């Protein structure tokens, strides 16, 4: 935990981390939140078709990916704590491990997409899959970006940069715990 001096009396002084990373987090949550609400809205027009399409998804693999991502978030949080206390080697190791777990997430996602392609399932197969590829693909792009960010901040190991990079990674984690049940689980 870092004590932050109140420098300008701004109401945002109490926020953990930079204000701009929170602006980014809220923006991303609005985009994904709208996407998921639209998904459930379109589902109202064809609930049986959406349920049948969902049966083509691999729920267990997505469940494993949830464990991978929340574990990655835990490693990143420990890394941020380590850099704050000056344990830079430990911080770099934890952040690299978090990035590695992100790579595992993408590998599982790639296998999932390859399985769909092998079944001839594409973006235009059904509106369910249009949303599926759009939402999970956009999220996967954020995971890929987050891996790069984690590796960059791990290399420099500066407290402010690590805090911002790790906050971005937690946002990716947060989005997934909303995407996973809506797209993969709800019947």
């Amino acid at each position, binding site marked *: 935990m870092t004590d932050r001096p109140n420098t300008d009396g701004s109401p945002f002084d109490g926020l953990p981390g930079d204000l701009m990373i929170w602006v980014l987090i809220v923006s991303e949550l609005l985009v994904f939140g709208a996407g998921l609400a639209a998904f459930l809205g379109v589902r*109202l027009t064809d609930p049986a078709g959406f349920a049948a399409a969902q049966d083509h998804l691999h729920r267990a693999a997505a469940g494993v990916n949830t464990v991978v991502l929340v574990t990655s978030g835990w490693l990143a949080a420990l890394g941020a704590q380590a850099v704050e206390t000056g344990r830079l080697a430990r911080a770099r190791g934890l952040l690299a491990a978090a990035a590695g777990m992100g790579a595992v997430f993408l590998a599982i996602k790639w296998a999932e997409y390859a399985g769909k392609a092998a079944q001839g399932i594409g973006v235009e197969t059904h509106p369910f899959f249009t949303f599926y590829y759009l939402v999970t693909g956009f999220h996967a792009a954020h995971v890929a970006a987050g891996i790069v960010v984690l590796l960059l901040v791990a290399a420099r190991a500066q407290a402010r940069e690590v805090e911002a990079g790790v906050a971005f990674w937690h946002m990716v984690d947060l989005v997934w715990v909303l995407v996973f049940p809506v797209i993969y*689980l709800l019947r």
Partner: protein
Amino acid sequence: MAHVTKAWALLLALSGASTVLSVAVARGALAGGAVTLGGAAILALSWAKARTILNAYLRLDEAPAFRRGFGLTLALYALLLLALYLAG
């Protein structure tokens, strides 16, 4: 145990519960209204996971006013998703 480690353990437990519920629904172990209740429970578990990430991983526990604001917004959003799910 560190705060973030407790949060991680909680997230694993909540994720496990979501997966068990969804597998039960997919295998036909639940039927009729129980399927809908199962879906509502899955959404509630998701809301709990999101709150845990916001409060522990993103450290809103250190900023109670922002924690309340984000918590309220997230709860309203979860209710919107629940309403859309129940309407289906």
